[in-house]
């Protein structure tokens, strides 16, 4: 390969793992956080529905 082209791209390949890691970590952590919050939200909504049902039943009795 042309030595000047080698020089131009000399930092490109060595830096690739760091760039991939930076973007991947941000995306993966965001995704995991969203999944955790949505799961927690669904669980709390289910608890809420059960409680409302129990309160309605209690007020009827």
């Amino acid at each position, binding site marked *: 390969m042309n030595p000047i082209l080698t020089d131009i791209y000399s930092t490109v390949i060595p830096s690739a793992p760091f760039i991939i890691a930076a973007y991947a970590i941000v995306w993966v952590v965001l995704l995991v956080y969203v999944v955790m919050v949505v799961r927690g939200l669904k669980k709390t909504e289910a608890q809420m529905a059960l*409680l409302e049902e129990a309160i309605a039943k209690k007020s009827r009795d």
Partner: protein
Amino acid sequence: MAQRKVNVPEAGQWPDKLAVPALAAGAALTTAGFLMAFLFAAPVNGAALDAPELVGGVMVSHQQLLSQKIFYFHMPVAIVSFIALAFGAYYGVRFLTTREQRFDTCSRVAMEIALLFVVFTMITGDLWTRFEWGVWWTWEPRLTTYLILMLIVIAYFVMRNAVDDPERRATYASVISVIALVDVPICFMITRLIPSSVHPVITREGGMAPDMAATVVVIMLGMMLVGYGLYRLRFREARLAERVQALKEQMED
């Protein structure tokens, strides 16, 4: 102290409906920005070459720095962390003045989002530092002040877990959220206040080219929407959990 009008915390206000659209728009914009960073924004020049070379019809006279692409996520997440900290402190002050639990929850959730984005800033910055400077860490002024900021945010959550009394916990937490905000302008301005700082500064490097600026704006908007969407989603969960707890206590009575 003002008497609370409702014992059961409210949950499910209309802004909660914006959470999913904000997250979707944020994901779309950050993805578009990611593509722009690699396909639209020109590479940044590094060291000068011995002789220029024609590459793809363009005369190249410097090394091409791919590592600079980390900046397109690094700077927006740092700005979003500052915004989240500002909201955390704002709601902290609202709690201190009103003693309404809702504001403590707002502050806690904003601080949680701030911690997430502070960690993103540290990770993306550290990966760049490792490649460009050859070290994982250096006691450079920007890095040091940002580390202090991260430690304050971590201390905020450690304190929350350590204090049992809700009123005291919320009061201490509000004060810490304000202290964290005090570090934000120090962090932001430190590279200007200490010119010997080796951390790159856009204005010092000659500003951003239009293609760079457009990419940063798209990702910045995307990250802000992601931050807002996460905040609303997490806030809804936290308020619902408080409501469930209050209803359980009401049933027990």
